[in-house]
């Protein structure tokens, strides 16, 4: 089993995330569509599918339950377009931190997959490793949750380069919508972002924070090496230097957030201890 399946807190976190998201969606002041915004039957009935935990109870077809004794939810024609495209950056730079950022990123992606399968019809998941390599998986309904998590568990970071190719594949044939993008956003992948902007996508960036982001520690004289082969630099770490680095990085993230806000989305910093609070607004 993998680290996601073995995580005892992850199911509770997902349930809470779903709950908070629904609650937020019901609050117009939080950007939601009111209490009815969570679900309405739109368009003609299309099919049934098996109920999975997290599905809207109001979508359960109780008549079918009375006939068969099993829970089914109704799927309408209008639900077909509701897709959650999720791009997870697994380049070598995601190995930074302790615990490494890629674990937090995959954990966040797992929660997003859970919520996406519960709230929307489909989740299109793409893991990008840089250098033109990526893996894609399309999930539909709660039954694909396990498959999605297994897909995430098997992924490991490595490689460098732009995610533009992967994003082009992910957004192919679509125009408009919201893109969830989990990454460290340093540096911001301009080519990939342009792809999303060109197709009128709102980009919601999820930045899993590691403790070393805001509190780097280096022992005296050190030789720093870039994780993606950017080279190395010998330097002496002083408190001033550490403080300056944090400040510069904060500034850089501010710029990334502003750039994503221009697309209609934003940058959501995901703190390890407050995953639900940080992640739920991105789903509203």
């Amino acid at each position: 089993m993998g680290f996601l399946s073995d995580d005892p807190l992850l199911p509770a976190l997902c349930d809470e995330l779903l709950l908070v998201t629904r609650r937020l969606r019901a609050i117009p002041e939080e950007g939601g569509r009111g209490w009815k915004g969570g679900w309405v039957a739109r368009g003609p009935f299309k099919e049934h599918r098996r109920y999975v935990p997290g599905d809207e109870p109001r979508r359960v077809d109780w008549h079918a339950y009375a006939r068969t004794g099993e829970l089914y939810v109704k799927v309408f024609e209008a639900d077909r377009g509701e897709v959650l495209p999720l791009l997870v950056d697994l380049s070598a730079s995601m190995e930074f931190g302790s615990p490494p950022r890629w674990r937090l990123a995959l954990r966040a992606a797992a929660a997003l997959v859970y919520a996406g399968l519960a709230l929307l019809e489909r989740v299109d998941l793409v893991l990008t490793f840089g250098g033109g390599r990526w893996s894609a998986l399309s999930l539909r309904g709660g039954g694909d949750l396990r498959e999605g998590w297994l897909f995430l568990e098997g992924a490991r970071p490595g490689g460098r380069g732009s995610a533009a190719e992967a994003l082009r594949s992910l957004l192919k044939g679509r125009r408009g919508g919201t893109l969830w993008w989990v990454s460290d956003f340093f540096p911001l992948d301009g080519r990939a972002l342009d792809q999303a902007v060109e197709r009128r996508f709102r980009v919601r960036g999820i930045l899993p924070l590691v403790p070393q982001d805001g509190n780097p520690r280096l022992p005296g004289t050190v030789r720093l090496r870039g994780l993606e082969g950017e080279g190395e630099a010998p330097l002496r770490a002083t408190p001033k230097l550490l403080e300056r680095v944090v400040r510069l990085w904060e500034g850089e993230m501010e710029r990334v957030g502003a750039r994503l806000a221009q697309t209609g989305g934003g940058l959501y910093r995901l703190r390890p201890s407050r995953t639900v609070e940080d992640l739920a607004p991105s789903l509203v």
Partner: protein
Amino acid sequence: MLSFQHPWWLLLALLPLLALWLLRVPRKGLHRLTYRLEIWIRAARELNLLQPRGHFLRDLPLVAALLCFSLVPSGPRWGARRGAGTLLVVLDRSPSMGASLGAGRPGKDRFTRALEILESRMGALPPGLEVRVLGAGGPRLLREDGRAGEFAPLAERLRSWGVASRGRARLEQVLEGLAPLGLPLLVLSDFAGPEKQAPGKAPPCSVRWVRVGRPLPNGALLEGLLLPDWPSPEVTARFLVRGSLLGRSLVVRPAQGGKVLARLALSFPPGRKGAERVTLSWERAAGPVRVSLEPGDAFPWDDTLLLEPPPLPALRVALREGDPGEGPSPAVRALLEGLTAGKGKIVEEDQGPDLVVVEGGRLPSPIPQGPGPDWLLLGTSLEGVTLPGRLEKPRVGSWDMGHPLLRGLDLSQLGIRWALKAREGGAAGRALVRTSRGAPLLLVRKGPPKVVHLLFFPGRSTLGAQLLLPRFTHRCLSWFSGIDPAGRRGRRPGGGRPDPEESDLSSLSLPPPGPRPSFALPGEPLGPPLLLGGLAFLAFWVFLAPSGRKRRS
């Protein structure tokens, strides 16, 4: 080559290197990975904390200075070759070394001869060279130490050893024990060398065997032989050298020193075994020459030869043709030109120092005894006595094939029209060539002076039409000039060849070639230059490189 008197002190040199490694070279734990290297560099550059590339090079002068200082106690020396200035001599004292050398050397045994060889060779070594002599082959191992320049007292002590009366302390075991030392090893023994013990196995690299009492060519320059090309203005000699010599040159210099007369770089096909013959020529006017191999090795005595080309002989030739009114026949003219190398003229009478030609005249009577010019006579008179008659078409019956004048010549095809009748013996000399009836055709008197009297006339024979003429001319030259037609061998400097039993030109069964043993003087001390260099490095580090250190601090 660099050598050290106290090699253990070299461990000191590890300290600065260790310090450099500990302090300057970032260890594995000092590397950190980051995803935001660009920000780090930008921040460090803004705060001037970025260490430039190769910053540790600034401390290299300090490390170099420490390295120099730490090398000084080990006593480095430059110029010494392998061996560190010590020669080990193993002297065989086994009972067989007490055997006599045989006829011609009464009362001298092999042990005494070995000591003579050792003493003669010490003179060719650096005086300060430490010599350790080990006496093996007896019940116990003996040892005496000395120096090559003060060998006489050491030799006395060695003589007191004498030959062991019993037992042979395994000489091979002693040699095996000494081999790991890597020192040049000189073994004097009548024992078969390792090449005989294990055929095909090369002897230890630094061991030189000197066999006492039996022939064993053991040097690199094995033999020198003057080729009989007199009276050419150049001397030509042939040398026998080891086929394994690569990168060395055969050099000819005047015996008293001076510029190089001839040089030949020795290069043989790789893997060549045994000996090679090489030929060198140089000016005859240089006189005695010293032939040596350069660069030399630890045993130069057998790689140097002295050659003394013989002086031009004062040869007088008296000709007397029997036919008045005829000039010298072409054969006689050719013979004369060969004898005089074209310098002489055939005239009625020439009183020059080298040549007297009397044609149709009178010969001095009698030819004076004692040192003086030699004589080649062709004529009807000998010492004023007219020969009584002549032989018509005599046939050559026998000749002395062993005499230097006729060695290798075939006179059976020599046709003679007529010859003079003469008696042999006494002042007339001995007959070397006789007719089929026993009458002399060629008379020789050993002299001095040497006299050769041809009783037949080259112009009245087939001598000039055959290859006999140049060959006979060559034999005459060799015999008159004292040069053996087989050439004159070189001798080792320092009073003749030190050990005639060791070399034999005819024997080419040499030991397998191996690396040449070598050692030399300890070399020039490097301590003072190292100290100066260390101070210079230190000054450079203190005065010229502080700017970088300040920036870093």
